[in-house]
């Protein structure tokens, strides 16, 4: 059986895995990133959330996420942020640097969360947004035109307008306008719309239909489909044609902002010399004492092994396929690491409970160096580091901390892996 050797093996191509690979490569390590799917980053909104709502009032969007995170770290030492708080700001700078270099600028809102409109007209707190989504001064806008396409599923401008109208953030006299655009295609996906809008005739067609509706002081909100390629600034081009700012709102996948980010990171990693192996699943590990000596990977082709100094487990909990569950049973699929299931309760009675669901908190307990530990805080595998959604103790869907934990834990794991001597 073939054995590949590398310094750092990152398993998983989500945000934390790619951050880990990027940071370890910066330390001069030979890095291999292996992933079974494309990574769920491409399914995300493309915005980076750190913390969404006040810890003491979960209905109130928070201003500075850092103030809330600090509170969390003090109150709850088992929250993943408590393990990675030391590198949080550093990891954000590192992330923004990578994106900036490739022309995908991520903007903060001066330390406060943005409140950005979603496809259903709610306002979503987020910390970093790409320029195409960072709606500035929503409270001063005189007209909001919501541009939907008749052939596009999953984006209904009336829904957006009806709900956004209820927001107290808008000027009382702010006019909301629904625009039904026609593409000439039988049906559209976000990706095919994006492709059409990259063509000059696609942009012209949109501008022609929208222009008569635009009044002074207007902005236009689009579904998140303003182009796929990063070398064509579709939002900028349409904005120029209309003479007013143009933005994408967050929506269900397929959504292009998340895909652009995924694509940017994968290309960045390859340019940094990281070996990326797609479509291969790590199915097991060989462990000697408290160290992993190699893992086994299965592609659609054959099985091979990879040995590394450090293994970074960025397999993304349930959605990414890192955890598998059966009735009453849950397992981490590669190392069989113990999963902290709290008091054993999986779900809240209420589907949309603001307390979230216990299963979202399920995960692997780690120490400050992100090594997996058992119930007595003893390190189980010293050369395995756990990142992102695999970490126990956070309710990402309520706290909106998923990206922040992924960024900081990935960065820290990559940094620690980079410090291991050969």
């Amino acid at each position, binding site marked *: 059986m073939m054995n590949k050797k590398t310094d750092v093996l990152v398993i998983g191509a989500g945000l934390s895995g790619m951050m880990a690979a990027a940071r370890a490569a910066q330390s001069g390590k030979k890095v291999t990133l292996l992933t*079974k*799917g*494309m990574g769920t980053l491409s399914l995300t909104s493309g915005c980076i959330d750190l913390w969404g709502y006040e810890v003491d009032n979960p209905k109130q969007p928070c201003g500075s996420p850092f103030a809330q995170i600090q509170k969390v770290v003090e109150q709850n030492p088992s929250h993943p942020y408590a393990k990675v708080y030391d590198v949080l700001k550093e990891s954000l700078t590192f992330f923004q640097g990578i994106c900036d270099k490739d022309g995908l600028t991520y903007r903060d809102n001066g330390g406060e969360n943005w409140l950005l409109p979603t496809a259903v007209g709610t306002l979503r707190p987020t910390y970093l947004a790409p320029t195409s989504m960072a709606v500035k001064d929503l409270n001063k806008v005189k007209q909001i035109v919501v541009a939907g396409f008749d052939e596009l599923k999953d984006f209904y401008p009336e829904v957006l307008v009806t709900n956004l109208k209820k927001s107290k953030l808008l000027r009382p006299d702010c006019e909301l306008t629904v625009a039904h655009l026609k593409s000439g*295609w039988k049906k559209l996906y976000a990706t095919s719309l994006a492709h059409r809008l990259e063509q000059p005739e696609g942009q012209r067609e949109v501008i022609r239909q929208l222009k008569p509706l635009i009044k002074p002081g207007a902005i236009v909100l689009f579904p998140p489909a303003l182009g796929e390629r990063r070398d064509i600034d579709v939002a900028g081009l349409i904005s120029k044609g209309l003479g007013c700012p143009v933005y994408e709102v967050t929506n269900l*996948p*397929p959504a292009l902002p998340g895909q652009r980010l995924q694509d940017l990171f994968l290309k960045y990693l390859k340019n940094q010399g990281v070996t990326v192996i797609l479509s291969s699943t790590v199915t097991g590990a060989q462990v000697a004492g408290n160290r992993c000596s190699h893992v086994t990977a299965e592609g*659609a*082709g054959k099985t091979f092994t990879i040995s590394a100094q450090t293994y970074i487990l960025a397999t993304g909990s349930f959605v990414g396929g890192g955890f598998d569950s059966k009735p009453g049973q849950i397992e981490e699929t590669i190392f069989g690491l113990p999963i902290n299931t709290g008091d054993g309760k999986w779900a809240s009675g209420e589907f949309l409970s603001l307390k979230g669901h216990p299963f979202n908190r399920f995960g692997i307990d780690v120490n400050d160096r992100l090594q997996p530990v058992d119930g007595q805080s003893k390190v189980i595998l010293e050369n395995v580091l756990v990142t992102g959604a695999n970490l126990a103790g956070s309710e990402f869907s309520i706290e909106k901390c998923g990206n922040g934990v992924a960024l900081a834990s990935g960065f820290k794991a990559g940094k620690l892996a980079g410090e291991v001597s050969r």
Partner: protein
Amino acid sequence: MTQKHDKHLILDNCIKCSICVANCPVVKVTDKYAGPKQNGPDLERFRLDEPRAVHPSIEYCSNCKTCDVVCPSGVNVSAMNCKAKGEYVALHGAPIRDQVLGRVELICKAAQIAPALVNWAANVKPFRAIGEATFGVAADMPFPRFASRTFLQQYKPKKINNPKGKVLYYPGCYVNYYTPQVGLALAEVFAHNGIEMVVDSFNCCGLPTVSNGLTEVAKGYARNNVAKLNSYIEKGYKIITTCPSCNLTLRQEYHELFDMDTVRINNETYDAFEYLLMLHEAGKLDTRLKALPQRFGYHQPCHLRSVGFGIPSLEILRLIPQLEVHNLEAGCCGLSGSYGFKKEKYPISQEIGQNVVQAIQEAGVTQNITECGMCQLQINHLSGLPIHHPIQLLAEAYGLPSYLPK
């Protein structure tokens, strides 16, 4: 490698996340295809009871297998689509064009009567215009040119004393009939490294027949190939391919589509560079390579990506001093075998391929390499630039005959 048989389980693994739709190169450029999720796992649920639950847009699936690669839940979307295509053709029949284009093996054998004449006729514009009008074969897509003698006619096995390994080379139709230089360069590299290489006559791997919905024809090829490959494996041979699509088909598709047991074939079949990399990891590869101060763009074929082994050719080519290989990272080239030769799909195929053109321009490369013959054809057509198989660069760096144009 384990082979999983519970189809219901794989179907249930689909969580409808749409990542396959988000990454599908066909959906992006046309509204004629309903999408991998809709044609695959969504309709497959109905097909468990009613095999005829097939959407006509299934013919627009190019079988690039991007959906399989991107799925985080291990759903074999493309196999569902391939089977659905077969079901559709079984119900409605395939046009004569598809029946011919799918039978690559027959076309190639027939052309052997007079390859030069066929090459000439294939490039006569009025003939191609008639072909488009009558049969729906895109007039603007150039056919590959038949070699005057096939690889199997040209290859003379060399006697290796105390070989480090013995392999059976499965050249596939493209190398055998169109680019024998690839097989000849491989033979040189193997002989140089003390590997004994034998050949035999095989059927087409069957991928073009599968892609055209001619499932029964493909099954016949598969049965013959599996029996013959197994007889070599029993004698201790490793199976080597240079075509990623043949490789994937032998390793995975016979099992996924026809429920054949190919565990042993999967374990014993290697892409040529995968095999060389294994020799290298074991310290058995000659790494005395001369400098090649040149720059190439590299295109990763979709079916190589889907095998899940990374890009072994890039790892080996890194050993060549002063050679600069730029990974184009542009996704599918769009041709997908016979797909891009069909009149109604030619524009789709060309549109998908624009990503590759753009990447070549950005990289500023004037020559390219890729493992897949059909990708070579498309990228040459799109860019007008020369393109080769990476094994030819390795042969060149060894100072062996590389069959590169001088």
